[in-house]
């Protein structure tokens, strides 16, 4: 039996070069095949198309009441605030993490809502009812005063049951809470006094 190349201890360097080259080509091919597989995890065209704007009729909404409409699968709240609730907003600045909505305004607060009340019309507050912490939907805590899980001088607002973040009546987050940001104000515009279009504004 003739001696094999491995036994002789010699290295066939041209064969080794080709082995390395083909292995690399194989690795590149495998990586390329992974692309379509990972891409299937992205939202489908149907999911992307489902983001149309929705209309809401607020004529029946009384002061101190909230209504919810669904936009892109998320709850959007429309609250008609009472004058007392609006008046309380000003006194809270010191307790809030971002009273002037300066953090990430492009994503969270459209230009027309960058004011104390975070709204176009002071009394009507439109916001996405999803906590900026981990995506729970906060519950209404409009009643003022001491109550479980809330401070004794509570001025009304929203309370996230998941991790205890609190927001005031303008969706501004209190300091030292898990949620980093104020609630998102979605793009919206008034079609008439009674109708709001959520998901589109005049710019678009």
């Amino acid at each position, binding site marked *: 039996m003739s001696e094999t190349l491995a036994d002789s201890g010699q290295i066939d360097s041209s064969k080794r070069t080709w082995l390395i080259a083909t292995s690399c080509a194989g690795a590149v091919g495998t990586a390329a095949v992974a692309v379509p597989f990972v891409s299937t995890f*992205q939202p489908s065209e149907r999911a992307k198309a489902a983001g149309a704007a929705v209309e809401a009729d607020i004529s029946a909404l009384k002061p101190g009441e909230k209504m919810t409409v669904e936009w892109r699968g998320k709850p959007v709240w429309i609250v008609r605030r009472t004058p007392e609730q609006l008046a309380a907003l000003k006194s809270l600045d010191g307790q809030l993490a971002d009273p002037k909505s300066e953090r990430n305004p492009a994503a969270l607060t459209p230009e027309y809502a960058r004011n104390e009340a975070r709204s176009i019309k002071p009394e009507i507050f439109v916001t996405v009812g999803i906590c900026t912490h981990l995506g*729970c939907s906060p519950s209404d805590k409009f009643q003022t005063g001491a109550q479980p899980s809330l401070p004794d001088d509570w001025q009304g607002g929203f309370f996230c049951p998941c991790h205890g973040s609190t927001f005031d009546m303008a969706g501004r987050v209190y300091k030292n809470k*898990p949620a980093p940001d104020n609630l998102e104000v979605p793009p919206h515009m008034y079609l008439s006094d009674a109708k709001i279009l959520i998901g589109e504004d005049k710019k678009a």
Partner: protein
Amino acid sequence: MAEFHEISPNASATEKLVNWVDNRFPMTKLFKEHMSEYYAPKNFNFWYIFGSLSLLVLVIQIVTGIFLTMNYKPDAALAFGSVEYIMRDVPWGWLIRYMHSTGASAFFIVVYLHMFRGLMYGSYRKPRELIWIFGCAIFLALMAEAFMGYLLPWGQMSYWGAQVIVNLFSAIPFIGPDLALLIRGDYVVGDATLNRFFSFHVIAVPLVLLGLVVAHIIALHEVGSNNPDGVEIKATRGADGRPLDGIPFHPYYSVHDVFGVGIFLFVFSAIVFFAPELGGYFLEYNNFIPADPLKTPLHIAPVWYFTPFYSMLRAVTSEMMYVLIACVLLGAGLGVVKFKMPTIFKAAIVGFAVVVVAMMLAIDAKFWGVVAMGGGVVILFFLPWLDFSPVKSIRYRPSWHKYLYAVFVLDFLVLGYLGMLPPSAIGGRVSQLGTLFYFGFFLLMPWWSRLGEPKPVPSRVTFVAH
């Protein structure tokens, strides 16, 4: 490669069949290696039942899971109804479903006890590091499996639990939001999410889990089991080369484990038949309400087995960050002052600490909460390299180690309990303390595990015949 073995023509039909197979597949060899000639220490106590039990629960979960899949529909519009259909209309469907839901909690109970056994007797130490690491990976895969399975009934807790956990990933700087989108496949948890979680739950993760279990057992059988004394039985062999303190796994421990299985099945069946919800701990009441993407239940908490880690997530607030920053600085300071090492290493430690503190100041507490939650699991992987105690087993450690372990267990239970409750000011403080203790227990282990005078370790295992 074994020689082809001819058998006498007078042998019985069974012997001939076994010989025929053995010439083509190492059946007898495998049985001997892993059962009849696998020598396990003779001094196992009841803590050693939980490994076998977790294998049993794995089988229960796979079998019941296969049958549930036959009637379940992974569709956001149909999922909740199909689970109710299994419960009400499929003959005996309720039993299969309750076995599966109780099995999920039972899995975590036996795995937690199994892990604690390893912690007590130093079963993770040289040469069993890889067994421990495979085990931690199994624990991680099990958490993924449980989390994704929990979405499938499409109840309120399923939905909002998934929403919260997927959103954890969006806290990662830069890539987070896109990663969360990639996991959900939609802008909120929806049909796409349900469908892919179903796929992961029924095939992808179970395959990984099975592979890891095989690796865990192969590694165990390579080095041999540890025991409550932490004595290596292989060090003392008889004239035949077998460990003197070892007994064959089969029949001694196979029969012994069947007894344990019997007791386990008593308890398991009692829960399945009489208290399948176990007061809301095994099946949460809110999950009997169909998922509503517009309304979060007033109180949401993960199932009990995730709550210790969930408490750690909630404990990290922006106030807590200052404490953590102080811990990092203190740790770096001690490292520089206390230990002798070249200046370049000291500079590296200081530089690293400065970078970490800068990141802690720059990135939201929310992200660090996620880091704490993940870190609580990941830190377990490093246990073999954190423990510097001269002895393995708790039996021969200084007595105060026992109290420390007791406090650790208590801490884990308190964190788990607080994680089930709605957030509160006192609960928040306690879980912050608990989180610090949990990480302190592991991160300071290289220091405290060396302290104190260990008791003399016998050369043979302690065993009283019964």
